[in-house]
């Protein structure tokens, strides 16, 4: 019946996505070795730290995206949340508010927009991809109306130590990523909330029947993704000190790609944060390496696209052999 089902208890015990994480880790090593061979600049502390900083916002957003996708949802509007929040942050700074006020305002804005997505998918029963696509259009429109095609620039970098600083020679961006992933891991694996996320992703009807408050869990999870996108917006502003018109255009698809490459099932119910983090590193290393060896960044998108198709096809084949839900 379930010939292809992964029932090896040892792997299962550690993590159902352990195989994928291992493959991804090996892929990162191989690609890294290739770039080290091809470019003398790749394996240098400066380049690696630069790549890490470039991965910061994507890593943070991807952690939230992982929870949403495990829950059987998706959010294609995170780029819009990031953009609108960055604008709110920029305008607040321009209004003369201090970072002590701007930071909570930014986090609250992101959380609010995430909650809006959760509300759309639960109360109005709109499929998440449609609901968040609609949100994406609304958020983009807000962004264009507010900044009208011009940049917001000259913003203070009060929070930039979170991006550029070091603590005991460890880059602060690495620590920020570590803290975010540790917190999300506790939420997903160590408290009841995470179990409910997995259960909803496995079978929403069952989750309801066993008494899980499905709507509340969903709204909270989308809100958490919004919160993390708000945090990413704060770091974006701290890093660049301006808000560019193309902010957040690629982050949603990259976060989804990192999550899927990391072994999280697009059908929900299965997934891990470690895999997602490896996915983010993989994507950013490919981008960085291709630039170093002078290949158009267009190829990066092609490579990620092909890998996604391979992964999703393998997933579909596995599920065809194991139709029982």
């Amino acid at each position: 019946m379930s010939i292809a089902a992964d029932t090896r208890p040892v792997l299962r015990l550690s993590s159902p996505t352990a195989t994928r994480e291992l493959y991804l880790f090996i892929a990162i090593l191989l690609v890294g070795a290739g770039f080290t061979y091809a470019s003398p600049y790749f394996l240098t502390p400066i380049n690696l730290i630069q790549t890490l900083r470039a991965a910061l916002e994507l890593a943070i957003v991807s952690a939230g995206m992982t929870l949403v996708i495990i829950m059987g949802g998706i959010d294609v509007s995170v780029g819009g949340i990031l953009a609108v929040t960055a604008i709110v942050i920029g305008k607040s700074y321009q209004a003369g508010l201090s970072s002590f006020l701007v930071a909570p305002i930014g986090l609250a804005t992101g959380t609010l927009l995430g909650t809006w997505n959760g509300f759309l998918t639960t109360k109005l029963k709109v499929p998440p991809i449609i609901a968040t696509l609609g949100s994406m259009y609304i958020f983009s429109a807000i962004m264009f109306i507010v900044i009208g095609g011009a940049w917001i620039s000259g913003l203070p970098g009060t929070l930039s130590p979170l991006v550029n600083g070091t603590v005991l020679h460890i880059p602060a961006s690495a620590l920020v990523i570590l803290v975010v992933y540790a917190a999300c891991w506790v939420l997903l694996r160590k408290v009841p909330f995470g179990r409910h996320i997995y259960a909803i992703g496995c079978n929403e009807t069952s989750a309801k029947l066993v008494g899980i408050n499905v709507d509340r869990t969903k709204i909270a999870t989308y809100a958490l993704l919004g919160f993390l996108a708000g945090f990413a917006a704060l770091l974006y502003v701290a890093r660049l000190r301006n808000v560019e018109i193309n902010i957040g255009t690629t982050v949603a698809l990259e976060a989804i790609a990192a999550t899927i490459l990391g072994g999280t099932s697009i059908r929900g119910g299965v997934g891990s944060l470690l895999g997602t983090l490896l996915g983010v590193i993989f994507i950013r290393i490919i981008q960085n390496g291709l630039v170093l060896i002078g290949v158009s960044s267009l190829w990066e998108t092609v490579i990620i696209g092909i890998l996604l198709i391979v992964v999703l096809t393998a997933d579909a084949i596995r599920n065809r052999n194991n139709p029982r839900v």
Partner: protein
Amino acid sequence: MVFKLSGIVKRFGGLVALDHVDFHVADSEVMALVGDNGAGKSTLIKTMSGAHIPDEGEITMLGKVMHFRSPQDAWQNGIATIYQELALAGKMTVVDNIFLGREMKRPRFGIPFLDLPAMRKRTDELLTQLDVHVPGIDSWVESMSGGQRQGVAIARALNMDARLIIMDEPTAALAVAEVRKVLDFVIRLREQGKSVVLISHNIQDVFEVSDRISVMRHGRCSRYVRPAKLPHKKSSAS
């Protein structure tokens, strides 16, 4: 009289799935519910378990009117349900499934951490008590046989320590020896003073364990039969 439904109506669009159903079950009583496919049995027990909200009618428990808005409401009032579709999460472990929505916690620093050792221990106890054998309590239920999954669902209901236990075809996927275990379990529940609602297509099983039988047809609970009058009944029941 512990649990009573009166005049329950449930419609799905134009379809009247429950048409003014009256139903009650007392302490230490096993109430069987039989009827054709599509008669409305599952719909009826879902209104008892809070999964459906009835369009009309009243649910009372110990004389108090209840308004179940969700399955949580029902189990907080001592009602445990084993659904026909089992309500399991396939890609989660036996332990996770048994405690889904009712996880054991060991809070530290104000964070409600899961108490995994306690849940694993309790799972072992429950499975031993029911004599259910699974490949491992950390395997996904998706990889298990129909009977094993039914065992997990029964273990979950047992763990709720409910006053009223509702079972929608709990023996459907079971072999003879396993059916025996479930029937003994039902008898034990009655001995403990609990109420049981049992849905089954197997008339033999129904006759053996139930005190009353209600026959459903086209959304109506037509009549009660008292199998207690049957001669072979006394041998197994208390």
